[in-house]
């Protein structure tokens, strides 16, 4: 009984993960930012991605950092709080371009199919 449900969950998680990664890169492309700032920006952009909770942002940040696409540094926030700031690396900028391009191609392809079908 657990089988089908697990599979669906896994799929949903994968989809969310990919979207989340891309959104983080996009948000950081405008300059460095701390965790809750990123969360705020993403919520403005898309209501559903963080619906599971802001906490899921952090595993994604660590994952991207491990990949070498973003880097982090402790600093002080606008309202004088200690915070960890994230910023895009060169590799991250390249990755964002690649993802955007892939996305465009995918959207184009789906659009073509939808028109043909």
């Amino acid at each position, binding site marked *: 009984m657990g089988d089908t449900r697990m599979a669906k969950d896994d799929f949903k998680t994968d989809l969310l993960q990919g979207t989340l990664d891309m959104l983080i890169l996009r948000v950081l492309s405008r300059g460095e930012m701390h965790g809750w700032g990123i969360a705020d920006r993403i919520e403005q952009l898309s209501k559903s991605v963080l619906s599971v*909770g802001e906490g899921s942002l952090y595993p994604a940040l660590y994952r991207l950092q*491990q990949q070498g696409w973003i880097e982090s540094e402790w600093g002080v926030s606008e309202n004088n709080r200690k915070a960890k700031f994230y910023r895009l690396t060169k590799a991250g900028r390249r990755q964002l371009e690649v993802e955007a391009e892939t996305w465009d191609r995918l959207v184009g392809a789906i659009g073509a199919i939808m028109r043909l079908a």
Partner: protein
Amino acid sequence: MNWFNRLLAPFRRDRFEAEMAEEMRLHLEHRTQENVEAGMSPTDARHAALRRFGGVDQAKEVARAQRWGAWVDHLRRDTQFALRGLARSPGFTAVAILSLGLGIGAGTAIFSILNGVLLRSLPVRAPQELRLVNWMGSDVVLNNYSGMEPIGKRGRLEVGSSFPYPVFREMRERLADSAQVFGLFPIPRVTTFARGDASVSSVLMVSGNFFADYGASMLLGRPLLMEDERPGAAPAVVITHSFWERRFGQDPSAIGQTLTLNQSAFTIVGVLPRDYIGPMPGDMADAYITFAAQPLILANRPIASANNWWMQIMVRVGPGTDEQQLRARMEAVFRQLLSGSTTKMGEPGIALEDGSKGAAHRLRQRMAMPLFALLGVVALVMAIACANVAGLLLARGAARQQEFAIRAAIGAGRARLIAQALTESLVLGLSSAVVGLLLAAWGKKVLLRSVVAQLEGFRIDVHTDFRVLVFTLGLALLTALLFGLVPALRAGNVAPLDGLKSRSALAAPRLRLGRMLVSVQIGLSLLLVFGAGLLIRTFSNLVRVDLGFRPENILLFRVAPSQAGMSGPELQPFYDNARRAIAGIPGVRSVALSDVALISGASSSTEIVLPGRPAKRGGARETYQLQVSDGFFKTMGIPILLGREIAETDAAGSLPVVVVNERFAREYFPGEDPVGRTFSLAGSPARPITIVGVCRDTKYDSLREEVPRLMCFSSRQQEQRAMHFVVRTALPPMSLVPAVRKEIATLRPGLPLSNVRTQEHLVRESTLVDRLFAGLCSGLAALALLLACVGLYGLMAYNVARRTGEIGVRMALGATRREIAWPVLREALWLALAGMAVGLPAALGLARLIRNQLYGVSASDPLTLVAGAALLVGIVCAAAWFPARRASRVDPLIALRSE
């Protein structure tokens, strides 16, 4: 993060954890502050922040799982967890490790020996360069062929590994520019005499370039050299470390001393190191001499003859040598020399074979056959053990479903759950491997002693090398995967919500797979029980076989006076004197001689011609023979049925006589009195031989062979170069050996006794392999039964525990104890029947594979089959009895209250 940080990541867990905790704390603090500023109370503000964040621990767990090097933590934690879990159920752990360990141990022990016999490369320089040289040909007519291996078949062609010496000499000379060709020939029995002490040794005769090209160094002195092989060279001998130890007490001054081989003096020039291993399988050689010693030691194998095929050729092929070209050149030499000999061979060719494991490859393969059979049996037991442990794990997994559900609920992914369950299996598998290696260290010694004990000095290197370790670890991992995978996948399938349900609401699964596993175990057990039954019956048939003589209290030994320099007219008086001297020893009843000891595996046969009765077409009159002294039949306890036995008066000058056995009389003289009739040997038709008596049928060379047509000649009527003494004693036979040795030494100093043993020992030895197989298979079958029992018991006990509530209800409603217990027993019986239904045809099929091992029982023996099945059913009932009884004793009140 650069590669350096990535590399260090596994070791920076604490920093990672601290930073993560701090960052999340700050995040929550900020949101709480925001909420307070928006007008919420501090408590509400914090709750709202937490809700918006989602599960803190879940987020942390996901972050941990995707870290580089997270697997190190996971492995460490899973291992700790598995160890703790296993320690908590010591019964389960002990059964699992012991059953797997026994299987792995047996497999490793057998594989170690197989490795030594078949797989291990020789410990010489670049063994992969060594090749064995074989000839191939069609329609082969060879006059004089002998060697380590009989001529084999390869498709249409015949294949052999023995060559005449001139072929070897030419190959070595003409190919010297591209390869090193060397030759060898084992001589099993040579009388060695050194420091006043005589014994019988095995000697390897080699070419002068042997040590250089085989690739062995010396511990002391020098190797044999090409000069030593020149005709007329001073006889030189190299001895092995064990011979040096036995005969010279490791005295370095042995170099330069004289070692007498069959009456010829050889100078010891070198001692081989302890770890040296020669090229023959089992390497029994004590000493090495060159082919130049042939006239002294091996008169019947003239090295100059191109028609006498006896020695083996090996070649070392240096790197970069064109092997095809080398083979073609060897073939050219071979063909040229063949044309000058009397041998007829069509399409003569040369084939090179891998020589890195040593000479006589086909002999090695034959020696390994029983080991392969045993490995097959072990594989069956391992399969049962795997099914058993898998069943136990499934039941355990069912009991721990809630635990897994909780772990899933607090954020463990499916992969993590599976990995964790598999870690437990791997810990079990590796622990079993350790137990197995320990058991194997002991088991291989027992196995070696019982398989090859009769071959004194038989050396096989069975130490645990890399290959054995890989085998053991591979076996452990494979079994761990086999028994662990399905339960692990089950564990990964748990739904997180189930963890929140109460235990009773959690329906315990019915373990359909567990039932199947138990059936499989019972089916496989039937296979083993049936096989063991057949082998036990074979062994007991062999033990009870009617020998036709009385084997108890008979001492046997062989003496070869010809090797001590006696010949012709000296021989018979020596035998007579020796018999008289031994007969005078207190405790000796009678003494006789025979050329071959009975039931020793040795035989000798010839064809006979019956006057006026041409042999039927295709029916050659092959007849087995013995040369015996007077008193032989009385000493052996063989009754004479007609006529008389061989007498002292049947001497060289008198009428050639023979005593034949019942089968001879029945088949060659049906319905007649054979006494007084004559026949002749196919080789000398003009010399009639008179039958003077008929003796009872006796087993001849082995217990398995049926009684052959046998004729016993008077040993006085032919020259006997060596004889077996047959001594019937009133005391334990071996206790007389020192006295016998003394008498022989007095008669002829330096003449050794060889093959000293009792007739009973020979009989026992001939059933050694049968006993070993019957013993091992019964042991393994018992283990299989025990495992199947444990598996069945576990399943039934689980089922009863699972249905305690239901049973309670039924009892409360008035069900009798019998009505409760019977379904449990019935289920067990159904499982057993299902297993046996599958096992039965498999058992019959597999039994056909061991047909040749059986004696006096057919491979489809119904009695053994029924007995095996009955044993299984009995054991199944016994295993199911306890859970059934527990079910019938369920107290309805307690059962219902626990719901």
